[in-house]
């Protein structure tokens, strides 16, 4: 199917299924129940899942295939975001020009940074990209304030020209749309005590992510992808055989930069504001974490990692003591307070701690990331089934002679 082998085709179908049915999968708990706290199926978070999924997929093309660890990918995300908002300020609120401009600007920016940084490899490459990203952040935060909005971020205003559609009508800012289909439009489906939200913006992002994922599979399986893997396994040997690996690494760098730009463009299409923090080193570090947590070099790993981190950031950080008291209310008072005190460091502002512990556990016990975890579980189940089947066969075989 689509030039994919059976295994990749299945993987793509799984990803399509997961993204399209996400509103159901992420809202497994009834609205009124105590567990509704853990529901993640609201538009903003679903959009974030897929957008950061795209970002991580792109990062993985560079890191997973070539082994070049870029610590400055957030700079491309930020550059794309700024380009996207400017398109909305200057042209129209249609998301298409914003997304296209975001990808182009991020691509150009990554050519520039990639060309310089790729002269070095290993830790020096990482430091160079980190330096460029921090430089971009510092510029965006202060010196470039007229272009980037500085600390307050670049946002739309009522007197923007928007030459294709004219200025704002009425006293309110227009909202991003796709040919009249507003990104924030949602459709609520109530089934009994469950509530599922289908959001236009989410599905736009989801379709783009599926396309991005498909492209990533093709890159992974192409001769170009093979060349990148060769860079990872032994770059020196490649040069000795007379191959210049620089064009390949630069291409990979630019492609992954464009993925980041696409993510940035989608981010502002969902929420038209670009802040400089998007370029900070913590944001660059986050995508590295996502990729490693999910499984570097695997296709679906980065998407899982992105979902994992965003889930913790948005769901765990919002649990507060009041909610804890609600959970443990069935216990006697003293015990209730003790339980709350025990759990308190791990929720609310402690979400970093919880995430850190999980990250450590994953790195120690599942060096291949969540994907390895999945594989182990799969293998375990598979082996047992095999054993059972074998057992049945053996039984059958044992019975045979008696017949």
């Amino acid at each position, binding site marked *: 199917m689509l030039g994919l082998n059976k295994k990749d085709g299945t993987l793509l179908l799984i990803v399509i299924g997961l993204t399209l049915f996400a509103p159901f999968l992420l809202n497994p708990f009834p609205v009124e129940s105590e567990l509704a706290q853990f*529901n993640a199926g609201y538009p903003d978070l679903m959009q974030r899942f897929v957008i950061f999924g795209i970002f991580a997929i792109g990062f993985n093309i560079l890191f997973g295939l070539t082994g070049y660890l870029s610590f400055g990918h957030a700079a491309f995300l930020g550059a794309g975001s700024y380009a996207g908002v400017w398109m909305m300020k200057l042209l129209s609120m249609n998301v298409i020009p914003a997304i296209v401009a975001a990808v182009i600007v991020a691509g150009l920016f990554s050519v520039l940074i990639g060309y310089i940084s790729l002269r070095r490899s290993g830790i020096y490459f990482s430091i160079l990209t980190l330096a460029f990203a921090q430089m971009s952040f510092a510029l965006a*935060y202060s010196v470039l304030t007229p272009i980037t909005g500085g600390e307050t971020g670049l946002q739309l205003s009522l007197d923007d020209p928007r030459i294709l559609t004219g200025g704002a009508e009425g006293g309110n*800012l227009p909202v991003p749309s796709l040919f009249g289909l507003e990104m924030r439009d949602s459709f609520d489906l109530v089934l009994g005590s469950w509530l599922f939200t289908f959001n236009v913006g989410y599905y736009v992002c989801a379709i783009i992510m599926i396309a991005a994922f498909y492209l990533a599979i093709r890159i992974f399986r192409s001769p170009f992808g093979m060349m990148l893997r060769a860079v990872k396994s032994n770059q020196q040997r490649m040069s000795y055989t007379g191959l210049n690996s620089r064009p390949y690494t630069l291409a990979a760098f630019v492609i992954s930069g464009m993925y980041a730009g696409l993510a940035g463009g989608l981010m502002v299409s969902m929420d038209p*504001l670009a802040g400089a923090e998007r370029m900070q080193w913590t944001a660059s570090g986050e995508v590295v974490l996502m990729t490693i947590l999910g499984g570097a070099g695997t296709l679906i790993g980065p998407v899982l990692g992105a979902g994992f981190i965003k889930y913790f950031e*948005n769901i765990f*950080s*919002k649990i507060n003591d009041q909610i804890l008291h609600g959970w443990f209310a069935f216990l006697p008072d003293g015990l209730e307070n003790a339980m709350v005190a025990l759990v308190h460091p791990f929720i609310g502002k402690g979400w970093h701690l919880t995430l850190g512990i999980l990250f450590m556990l994953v790195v120690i016990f599942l060096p291949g990331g969540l994907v390895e975890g999945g594989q182990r579980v799969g293998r375990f189940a598979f082996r047992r089934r095999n054993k059972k089947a074998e057992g049945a066969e053996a039984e059958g075989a044992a019975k045979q002679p008696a017949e």
Partner: protein
Amino acid sequence: MSSSNFTRRGVLRTGAATGAGLALPTIFSGAAWSQGFTNEPTGSTVTLGFNVPQTGPYADEGADELRAYQLAVEHLNGEGDGGMLQTFSSQALDGAGILGKKVEYVTGDTQTKSDAARASAKSMIEKDGAVMITGGSSSGVAVAVQALCQEAGVIFMAGLTHSNDTTGKDKRANGFRHFFNSYMSGAALAPVLANAYGTDRKAYHLTADYNWGYTTEEAIRASTEAMGWETVNAVKTPLTQTDFSSYIAPVLNSGADVLVLNHYGGNMVNSLTNAVQFGLREAQANGKDFEIVVPLYSRLMARGAGENVKGIYGSTNWHWSLPDEGSKAFVQSFGTKYGFPPSQAAHTCYVQTLLYADAVSRAGSFNPCAVVEALEGFEFDGLGNGPTLYRAEDHQCFKDVLVVRGKENPQSEFDLLEIVEITPVEQVTYPVDHPQFAGGALGTCNPGA
């Protein structure tokens, strides 16, 4: 490839699925369409969203804000001693929640990043059904969240945000600010500085290189130059700077005799400490004693800078030692609950929550447009700052501003600042089209959905 097998079972299944699909529209809750505005509270409770920095550089202030919010919710629900509800000039609130609905709240972490703050606010609006968002401890975040609330159609009650832009070029119809701003700091400080240090001073500015720093420098320069001061130099310092010695060293030889530190939080603690270590306090320049000024003070900063704040002038929105009834009631109930006096961040957040609740009660509706109408031009008293006006044109509160000085002999770790002067509101009022607030438009209120 396609195979079509019409089995009895298959047809039945398809039929059932189609039937269910056709029945769906009748299951939709009518709420989605009947709603006049975003997140209309229909049950017996109403949800407010408290979006404060719980991690990052302003986490201390965020924690204090959260304490104030919890206190406000208690008082609104009729628990505790009622705090400022008794002293508030408007007596629309009766301690039975808001419009009879019990107040519940959700919390979130802004991380002092606009992106994270917006994500957190969005989840409150989309998931938890919050009808009002409040909080924040930085102008960047306040402006970002304010814009989001405008788009989503909920009310935003700003927490601690001091930049002119929040109610200047980035003002929004659904957003309101009780806290004072850079211009007011300048207007309040200038006369006090002129009295204390004379009118022929030469000032040297160190300014944090971001939006708030710029507006504060502009405001202080404008008002001090109007009195006859001269600005020798203004140097921008990176926000992430922790050692300011290289910026302080040139000050002594610049011909300046006053150093203005347009820094906040950790920046101010470090730059002030450096300046004092360099002996600027004892130095002489142009035949006068060298002086240092910090435009925006907070108790948490004063605590960080310790001994070094003694005798240094600055401005603040509110201080717990104020003797009026409202302040006393608030300090009393905050102290009883938490064991120490509240900070100015806690005060503004508490007051904002009460103001919102009161506006809803007076309007008789949670509809953002009704709330906006109730708050615009609202005059009130008894909330700690004397008679106050919520100006309709830019949604900024106008009230007295405190000029404070680091105390020479503090009695406790909370008793670090003393009030030098309460600058009357007339002196800090500015016209809506003042150049420092130029650009931007309020727009019209957005009820959302």
